[in-house]
Structure formats: structure tokens, C-alpha cells
């Protein structure tokens, strides 16, 4: 049967790239990072690499729980975070840990979370919602926070982040649709890292790009090379400032690659080849940015090593602080569950604690 009426998808989304894999500058953009910001990007990316290594080794030592890896995705995370204002709201997932930290959430808060403890509160001037574990569920929150900013007359922008897999969830759809209908100052940032655990991007959705999903909402979309920190920064900046100016939301797809396992519990060799990984390892976002910095004469001898050293000591200090914190207590669970406990909640709390006290040794079981 000849297709007479059905219009096959024709969306075309060339990948935005400002810096080549070899570090060569391919193009300039109004919203590109300045010299200082490029150094900041580099610093955060180096930090991210060290952070990832340290978290994995803490997990191996049993000092924290299962943790997602971010290796290979440092440019997306840093480019995103630095293009935002501190008061803009970052609303992402476990894959945005670096972005959260670069945005202003303390390393210690993140470590506490993975230690299974009470996460410290965010600094009051940092816009952020908790690191989301339920995939996709944060996307309507971003629409809501953005609407909140709009209603309050603030010029904050909310950035909702998720992975390629998360775009399949109903909440992704509902959040983007709401945001566009209400023209809220939101940006949706998808790190397409090729995989959702073992499910490759091509089995996640049949659309050629994630960016073209924006058109379902009458929203602009863009694909950016997620390993090009300069391009990610420029594209996010454009989208954030556009949203801030009242021109509504946009969807950004940052194409990157998860070089490591999904989490410390994952064995990626079950579902992808070493060759695939090796090929992607060729394009290390840190190396790419360093080459650019070198070419543009910004890089100083020994800079990376120095930044790595700094990152290591920052991590050590944060780990020490996090590990010094006392364990969660049952009363905290009640006190943090309810802002306004009723009489029966208070009785539950008291009864639970006295039962546990009577047991005494239960903690050591």
C-alpha cells in the first residue's frame, strides 16, 4: 500500500558543536563561555572525574551505597551548571551529581545521601530540588517550579534534567506539555548517554533524536554535542536566557556517552561490547577541552594535575565531614516526615522510640 497521506517524520536536528574532538575551535557563538568560564568548566570537569573515582572507591569499601557513574558525561554536567545562575533551580537525577555540586550543593550533602543519611539542606541561595531517583518524576516539578518563579515575578529559571531513558516516562510528556502551554521559564535538559541501564537509545524510542520530541509540545529543541563543554554551555545559556526573558521553555538533548557502568551494581559487559566503549573513550570531554585551552593559550603547564590534587583534597575533607555526622535516628524520621505533626503522630513517635529503647541492642542486629 502506497503511503499517500501519512507524513513520515522529517525533523532535522544537526548536532551543535563548537569544538572538535581534537580541540579545534569550529565556531563561535554569542552565548559561548568566556576565558574564565572555560577555566571554570575545566576545573569542574576535572573535579567530576575525581569525584566519580572517589565515590566508586567509597562504594567498593562499603562506605556508601550503590552509586551511578558519571565518567564521560562531565562536559554535559559542567556546561549545564555553569550556564545557570545560582538562584536558578536545578531539578535533576543521580546522573547530575556533578551539576548539583557545581551549582552550589555541597559535596558533603551528596555524600551523606549516598551514605544513607539525612542529606544536609541546600544553601539557602541555591535553587534546587532533591536528586531524583524515580525516573522522570522530576520533570513536572521543573514545570511547577518555573511557574512558581513566573507567578512570583522572579526571573529564576527552572532546569529539569533527565536521561534518554526517562523521556519514555509519562511524566516527561506531561511536564513538557504543561510547561509549553503555560509558557513557563523552564529548560529541559536530557543527557542522552546512549543507554538506560542495558537498553540502548534505539530501543528506548523510535524517534531519530530526543530533541525532536520538543515539537510535540510546540517547543524549540536542539541537539548538542554533550562532550563539548563549550557548546553545552552556549546552548544551555541561550535556552536559559530565552526562558528568563519570558520566551518559554526549550528542550536540549546533549549527546554523550556513559563510559562506566550504570552504577556500581551494573555489569555493562552483559549488554555492550568493549569496542563500543573503547571507541567512545577516544572522545574524552576533559581531554577535548584541555586541547582547546592549550590551543587558545589558556592552559597552564601542570594545571590539570593541580586541579586533580585540589579535587582530591576537597573530596577527602568532604568525606571526613560526612562520615563524622551521626547516623539517622528514628525521631528524625518522624520529625522530617511531618512539618506539623498531629497528636497521634507524636504518640507514634514516642511509642516507636520507646520500643526501640527497650530493645536496646536492635541497632546492632
Amino acid at each position, binding site marked *: 500500500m502506497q503511503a499517500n497521506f501519512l507524513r513520515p517524520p522529517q525533523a532535522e536536528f544537526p548536532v551543535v558543536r563548537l569544538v572538535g574532538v581534537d580541540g579545534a575551535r569550529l565556531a563561535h557563538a554569542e552565548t559561548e563561555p568566556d576565558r574564565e568560564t572555560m577555566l571554570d568548566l575545566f576545573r569542574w570537569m576535572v573535579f567530576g572525574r575525581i569525584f566519580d573515582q572517589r565515590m566508586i572507591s567509597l562504594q567498593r569499601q562499603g562506605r556508601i551505597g550503590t552509586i551511578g557513574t558519571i565518567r564521560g558525561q562531565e562536559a554535559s554536567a559542567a556546561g549545564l551548571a555553569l550556564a545557570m545562575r545560582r538562584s536558578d533551580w536545578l531539578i535533576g537525577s543521580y546522573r547530575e551529581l556533578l551539576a548539583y555540586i557545581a551549582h552550589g550543593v555541597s559535596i558533603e550533602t551528596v555524600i551523606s545521601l549516598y551514605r544513607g543519611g539525612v542529606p544536609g539542606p541546600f544553601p539557602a541561595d541555591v535553587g534546587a530540588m532533591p536528586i531524583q531517583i524515580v525516573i522522570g518524576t522530576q520533570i513536572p516539578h521543573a514545570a*511547577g517550579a518555573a511557574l512558581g518563579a513566573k507567578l512570583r515575578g522572579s526571573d529564576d529559571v527552572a532546569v529539569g534534567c533527565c536521561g534518554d531513558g526517562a523521556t519514555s516516562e509519562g511524566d516527561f510528556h506531561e511536564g513538557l506539555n504543561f510547561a509549553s502551554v503555560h509558557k513557563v521559564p523552564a529548560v529541559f535538559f536530557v543527557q542522552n548517554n546512549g543507554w538506560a541501564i542495558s537498553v540502548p537509545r534505539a530501543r528506548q524510542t523510535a524517534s531519530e533524536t530526543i530533541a525532536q520530541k520538543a515539537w510535540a509540545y510546540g517547543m524549540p529543541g536542539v541537539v548538542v554535542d554533550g562532550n563539548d563543554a563549550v557548546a553545552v554551555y552556549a546552548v544551555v545559556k541561550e535556552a536559559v536566557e530565552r526562558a528568563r526573558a519570558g520566551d518559554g521553555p526549550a528542550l536540549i538533548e546533549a549527546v554523550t556517552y556513559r563510559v562506566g557502568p550504570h552504577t556500581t551494581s551494573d555489569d555493562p559487559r552483559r549488554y555492550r561490547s568493549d569496542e563500543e566503549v573503547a571507541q567512545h573513550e577516544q572522545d574524552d570531554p576533559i581531554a577535548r577541552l584541555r586541547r582547546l585551552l592549550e590551543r587558545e593559550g589558556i592552559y597552564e603547564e601542570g594545571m590539570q594535575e593541580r586541579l586533580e590534587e585540589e579535587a582530591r583534597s576537597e573530596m577527602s575533607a568532604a568525606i571526613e565531614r560526612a562520615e563524622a555526622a551521626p547516623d539517622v535516628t528514628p525521631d528524625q*524520621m518522624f520529625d522530617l516526615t511531618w512539618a506539623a505533626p498531629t497528636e497521634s503522630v507524636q504518640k507514634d513517635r514516642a511509642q516507636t522510640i520507646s520500643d526501640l529503647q527497650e530493645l536496646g541492642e536492635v541497632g546492632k542486629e
Partner: protein
Amino acid sequence: MKANIVEAIQDAMRVALARDKDVVVLGEDVGKNGGVFRATDGLQAEFGEARVFDTPLAESSIAGVGVGLAAYGLRPICEIQFGGFLYISLNQIASQAARLRLRTAGHLQAAMVIRAPYGGKVRTPDLHSDSLETLFAHTPGVKVAMPSTPYNAKGLLLAAIDDPDPVVFLEPMRIYRGLRQDIPDGHYTVPLGVARIAREGTDVTLVAYGAEAQTALEAAQQLATEGVSCEVVDLQTVSPLDRETIVASVQKTGRAVVVHEAVRQAGIGAEIAAVIQEQAFYSLAAPVQRVTGWNTPFPFVQAEHLYVPGTAHIAQAVRRVLQD
């Protein structure tokens, strides 16, 4: 002012919108249409489209956008058009709203209200009559209020809007317009977490809430003519449960009948019976009886009058509990 329940609810929202500009109302058809039950009638005209607005038809995001609004510091009142559609909102309420404060160590809170009409004997289509309060009662971090009169409808809703915790507010569709009462103008609250003794009595305690609180009162009246004195505890807040008031009443009467339209198995009635036997065991002269929906989904309309407890169902259980 004189008001029925739906007018009382509308008035509560009007008062809240007027006194706190962070309060916003969102949901399907809440704007121009004023809600399918007119609960938001006139509010958009009065407070503008920025504060009272229609959402796309998507219940997960109605709650989810509410969570984002609340996180930013607003006080959203989200309307879900019928209680049965709360299934779709549950994830955002239970995994998100109920845990936002916990996850941020108190830095953020989900001070929001999710309103929905619930309940049967209104001849509605499939899924429009379900009573899903128990799903939320099993979800610590979210409160559940269910009014039974114009007075407590307004007072509980205002308390819910003021409350820093998320509140699911389920409105008794069946008696939206049946009862008219004088209620105070302006702002007042009926505190969350506190049941009321709707009628004093000595022989048996009827525990009910929402529309069934009215049915229980009617049953108590009928039973009074047979010489049976029923105390009626109207929960007002279904979660956290005011165990103290229930237990005190049963300690006095020695007998209890729990009433709700929700499915029987694992319904909130089970919790109430469990609490009574835990805390008033030695006062109990007979097992606690439950008068509830059956262990089937809400039925086709032709059978709903048999499913939803009426005064006869309640009287039957009272007679049994007195015989034991």
C-alpha cells in the same frame, strides 16, 4: 453565611486566595467552567487567570506541577476531577509530595492541597465513585481530610491550605448540595488530626467520616427510636488518625461499628478496628464490626445503593454488635 458543602469549599478557596497571594488553584476545568461541580465557580473571574487556571488533562502532572510550585514556595490547591483518577496522581503524591521535606531535611516542603470529590450513589460512570482515601492513609507524610458538613468542609480546607504538609482533601460528592448550614464568614479553621463527636451516646460508637458520617447520624437517629444510644465519631481527618478520640469513645461504650464506602479489605476501617482492639481491648464487649463497601470494585450503578452503606446496613451491624 448559609452554604452547602460545595459552596463552603468554594468560600474557603476564596478566603485563602484573598488572604495569601501564594495560593493558586489549578486543575481540569477549574477556570471558566468553575469546575464540573462549580467548586471553583467565579474564582478565576475574581482572582485572575494567573492564580486560578486550567491545566492540561493529566493528573500525574497536576500533582507534580503542584509539588514544583510548592517547592518554590507557593501554596497550590490542585483539583483532581474525580476521586478515582487519584490512582494516576498517587506516584507524585506518595513518592514526591509526601517525601519532599524528608529528602531535603526540611529545606523544602510540599505545602499543597489535592482536592477531589469522592463517593457513590450519585449514578456516575465507572471510576467516578471510588473512595481511595486508604491509599493515602497508608502514605505517611500526607494528611487526608474528609469533611461531612459545610462547617467542617470550609474549616478543614482552610486548615489544609495553611498546613505545611501536603493534604489530600476528599469531598463527599453525594452531599455536596444536600446539607445547608450557617457557617462563619472569612477565615476559620477546623484543626487537622482531630475527630469530632458528632453525637453523644452510650451503647455503641459509630466511627465514620465524609458522607457516611451523615448516614451514621441518620442511623443513630433511627436507632434512638428503638432505644439504642449511638455515639457518632466523625473523623474529619482520616490520616493521621485521631486514635485518642476513637479509643476514648469505645472505652465508654464498649462497642464499635466502623463505617466507610471504600472497599472493605485493607480499608481504613481495618486500621480503626485494629487500633480499637489494641487500645481498648479490655473495654470491648463485642468484636468491632465493619460496615463498608464490598470486596469488589465499586459496582455498576444499578447495585450502588446495595454497596454503599445506608442506614439499614449500619443498623444491621449495630444490632449485631449489641447482640454479641
